[in-house]
């Protein structure tokens, strides 16, 4: 019988997959996660423009932004990884903040 996984465990599994799997250069993929999470990282245009838009206002992403990344990296799979890494960075940033807040409140309550 397997032990049910917690949300925290599943979040870490996702983080590990995004940072360690895939076809992109690991440094590029981790930079997408970091910028997706609102942190600093070195990332060339056009990747930076797409990733920052996904992080801040994903509904404003344009065809041209996605096409520019697809053409720069040479495949749909690579462009997909950029998009997924940026999105995961944004989601995990929020999860980390929520978990920290909940645990602090829980600890305060004793």
């Amino acid at each position, binding site marked *: 019988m397997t032990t*049910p*996984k917690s*949300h925290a465990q*599943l*979040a870490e*599994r*996702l983080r*590990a*997959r*995004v940072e360690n*799997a*895939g076809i992109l250069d690991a440094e590029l993929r981790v930079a997408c996660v970091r910028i*997706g999470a*609102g942190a600093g990282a070195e990332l060339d245009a056009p990747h930076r423009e*797409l990733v920052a*838009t*996904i*992080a801040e*206002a*994903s*509904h404003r*992403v344009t*065809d041209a932004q*996605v*096409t520019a990344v*697809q053409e720069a990296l040479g*495949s*749909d*799979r690579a*462009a*997909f*990884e950029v*998009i*997924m*890494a*940026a*999105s*995961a960075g*944004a*989601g*995990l*940033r*929020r*999860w980390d*903040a*929520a*978990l920290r*807040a*909940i645990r*602090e*409140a*829980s600890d*305060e*309550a004793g």
Partner: protein
Amino acid sequence: MRLAEVERGDSMRHRMLIRLISRFAGYRLPDAARVAFYDKSFAGPALGEWTQKAMRESSSWSVSERELMAAVVASWSSCPFCVGAHGAIAVRGVEPELVSAALADFRTAPLSDRLRAALVFLERMMTEPDRLSAVDARAALDVGLTVDELEDAAAVAAVFAIITRNANALDYEIPTADEFDRAAVMLLRRGYS
């Protein structure tokens, strides 16, 4: 859908599945399902497993309450695909008028105090994550939520912070209302992983 390979499938098996499911269902397989089929060696399976846990596994929140949270989170991300898809599931367990009211303004919608308190926490988590603190969590716990309930709600919001960004960045095609309703039946039956 902005990436052709994601739309058509990245293997013969997935291309056949997409065609077969679309034919069987009688409508174009939604882009969310095409993304779930795509690039299984990357992050998709891990995201699917967490989404399944958040949306379908044991929780004090009902499936419809979690789907309503997902739809409201999607509205904050300006994601029409996810608002439509998850609103269509929520109305199978919550009055449609209540879903509409929550999407319009969850603060004034006639929701339970605990659901409203969870959404207050989730709104700050989504829109001002750097300002989220123990004070926000304490406010939700003071209304009567348990730590587990607040974590479960936060997990729904976290996975939909990811899913809505994928949907918007890839420009998912928006199904008709009837197609959303039919896809809701499939998602209720099959889940997310």
